[in-house]
């Protein structure tokens, strides 16, 4: 009996996966879900085998884009991190750019990139952008969190910041950097697929997905989703392998929650601080402007910030443009907020329950990890198959993209609560649920906000993909339509507005997180 138990315990993850596959097979065989929308895994594999001639060029294109974007994005991210740590002022000035890059829903800027860049550059750029943030933040943490004694030692021998960087920081940051690369690798695949899908390229899994969407062929869509997940998972595994060769201590899979962004910069004076904040705010727009000026593109196609303002407020058609934008926002925002709240809520309940009954965590982690690796674009058509093309699918996508990352963040946060804290309240006679209320809930609150901060861009991306692909409503649809109508002004406007929405909601979550942590 106990031997069987031990066996089950040791292989809990494998068992969970096996059970899922078996249930899936049964559900598919007997067409239990949405009359055949969920084909059996065996059917999916058979279909993939039949389609294999199609797969290779598409897979090769996606892997190539992801790889080049991964390399380019990481080089930039590493150099930026070194710059930010060596001269902290540059970090503060770049804060606006960094937040924008983190928060931008990639799908929103694909059409803009296609307008502004030639050939495969839009795809490479998007893959690189997807990689930049996780690597940059991990590297900054690695460079910053060095043994202060080592730094003091450098100073004592007359070494300045340059010597500290050269002898201590660079080498010390290696484990953190490799951790960042692991997160970045599947991101590059997602970025590549999103870009293919929005840029009308000839090859790539994104293109294949888009082409297969119209046919009533669930097995093929699932096959593409599986292939995309496998590539992303493989990218993760390769990065993890490289990491474990350098640092023997392998770490748990984490979402780079990072620290709460520093609340107040150390400024010399109020005016100095305001000046830095203004530059940080203006810099993204200045870069946008500067790049377009350098590119020499026609102002009709490539809108500067001023061009967007012009489009939205000056000409006679402005009122119409404003109305379309506002009604799209009115469709997108409520669904996004509801879906995000539901996803975060479920994650919160489950994580807190898991803190009391750890078995739940063990059973759910594998599913959480698989869905995290599964590229969002690949997930969307599958959910469309199940939920149809109404509002339900948008909510389902938003919940599913926010739930699992939030759950992982919260579960990790709660696992950091010292076990002694639980034991202490129990020792005074508190029941399990009472301990939960007194220890787990307050402990998890800051993590909930951290999870919200991470969930914002994903939620908006999920909603926009659903709108673009399935529902024909909201910002995503407006963007897709404007592409068709060659309405350049609207393409740039939607890109700008969706980035702004994401950044504002992100900042809101940061503000709440600060309030929650300030009291402790």
């Amino acid at each position, binding site marked *: 009996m106990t031997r069987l138990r031990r066996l089950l315990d040791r292989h809990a993850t494998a068992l969970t996966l096996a059970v899922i596959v078996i249930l899936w097979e049964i559900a598919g065989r007997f067409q239990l879900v949405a009359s055949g929308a969920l084909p059996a895994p065996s059917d999916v594999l058979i279909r993939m085998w039949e389609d294999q001639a199609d797969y290779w060029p598409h897979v090769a294109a996606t892997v190539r884009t992801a790889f080049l974007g991964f390399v380019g994005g990481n080089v930039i991210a590493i150099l930026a991190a070194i710059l930010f740590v060596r001269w902290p002022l540059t970090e503060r000035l770049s804060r606006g750019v960094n937040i924008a890059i983190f928060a931008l829903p990639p799908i929103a800027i694909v059409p803009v990139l296609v307008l502004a860049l030639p050939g495969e550059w839009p795809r490479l750029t998007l893959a690189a952008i997807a990689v930049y943030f996780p690597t940059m933040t991990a590297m900054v943490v690695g460079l910053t969190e060095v*043994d202060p004694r080592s730094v*003091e*030692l450098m100073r004592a*021998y007359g070494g300045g910041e340059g010597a500290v960087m050269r*002898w201590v920081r660079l080498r010390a940051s290696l484990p953190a950097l490799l951790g960042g690369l692991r997160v970045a690798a599947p991101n590059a695949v997602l970025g590549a697929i999103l870009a293919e899908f929005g840029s009308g390229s000839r090859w790539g899994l994104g293109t294949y997905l888009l082409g297969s969407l119209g046919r009533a062929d669930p097995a093929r869509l699932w096959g593409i989703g599986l292939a995309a997940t496998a590539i992303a998972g493989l990218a993760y595994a390769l990065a993890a392998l490289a990491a474990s060769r350098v640092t023997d201590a392998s770490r748990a899979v984490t979402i780079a929650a990072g620290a709460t962004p520093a609340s107040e910069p150390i400024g010399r004076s109020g005016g100095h601080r305001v000046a830095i904040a203004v530059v940080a705010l203006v810099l993204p727009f200045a870069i946008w402007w500067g790049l377009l000026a350098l590119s020499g593109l026609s102002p009709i196609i490539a809108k500067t910030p001023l061009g967007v303002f012009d489009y939205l407020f000056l000409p006679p058609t402005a009122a119409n443009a404003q109305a379309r934008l506002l009604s799209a926002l009115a469709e997108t925002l409520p669904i996004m907020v509801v879906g995000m709240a539901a996803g975060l809520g479920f994650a919160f309940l489950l994580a807190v329950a898991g803190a009391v009954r750890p078995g739940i965590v063990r059973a759910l982690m594998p599913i959480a990890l698989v869905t995290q690796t599964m590229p969002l674009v690949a997930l969307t058509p599958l959910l469309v198959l199940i939920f149809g093309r109404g509002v339900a699918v948008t909510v389902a996508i938003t919940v599913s993209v926010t739930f699992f990352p939030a759950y992982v963040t919260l579960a990790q946060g709660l696992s950091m609560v010292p076990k002694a804290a639980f034991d202490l309240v129990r020792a005074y006679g508190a029941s399990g649920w009472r301990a939960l209320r007194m220890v787990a809930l307050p402990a998890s609150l800051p993590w909930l906000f951290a999870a919200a901060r991470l969930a914002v861009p994903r939620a908006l991306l999920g909603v926009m993909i659903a709108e673009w692909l399935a529902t024909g409503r909201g910002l995503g649809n407006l963007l897709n339509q404007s592409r068709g109508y060659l309405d350049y002004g609207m393409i740039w406007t939607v890109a700008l507005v969706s980035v702004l929405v994401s950044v504002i909601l992100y900042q809101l979550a940061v503000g709440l997180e600060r309030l929650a942590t300030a009291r402790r």
Partner: protein
Amino acid sequence: MAGGRGIVFEEISKQFLVRGSPLAVLDKVSLDCPPGSFTALIGPSGCGKSTLLKIALGLETVDAGSVRIGGEPPDAVRQRGEIGIAFQDPALLPWRSVSANVALPLDVLGGSRPEQRARIPHLVSLVGLSGFETALPGELSGGMRQRVAIARSLVTAPDVLLMDEPFGALDLILRRQMNVELQRIWMEQSPTTILVTHGIDEAVYLADRVVVLGGRPGVVKGIVDIPFDRPRPTTIFRDPAFHRLTDEVGALLGGDEG
């Protein structure tokens, strides 16, 4: 090279800002450490002894008074690599071998410094780590790591050696063993040395004189000269004269409460 420079503190005063209000940690502390002397600074936590050491290093500013090493400000001396430093934490870089960690100050100071590099094997054997030249810090015990730190502090052949509780994290037996070895190593170069410590035995055994700091802000409570010849045998720990001196230091420390 027997200690070319002395360290002179003159009327040092220092305040820290604690939550916006000033807290005086040192009040007009004067101290003269002649060339080649070994001074132990002892006192309760928070009396400013570590701050005084950082001032001697030039890593901490003063509000009043001055410190001179051989007549120069400490910054200049430090940046030439003429001060050796050892902290309570050995602060070894985990990715560097024993030899490479000992060589670290030379790398930071720049220049090839061939004759100082040539001395590294000798220093490693001096601290009893022959055969461990290529070992990484993770493969060493706590005491061995601290020996690496001592070797590192001597690699520039410094005129001045500043140590802040270098054996504070070691157990009593290991600590006494390290004290004996430090004396042996010290006698080879006799740099002008200041040792900050909590241990009365350690201070009396190693130093030419023990300076007791106390009070808040910290002032010099008293100075006890240690007349024993070197090398001092370990049997000295059982000598009644040794105990009279430790009692004297203890009395100066104990008077702090009143």
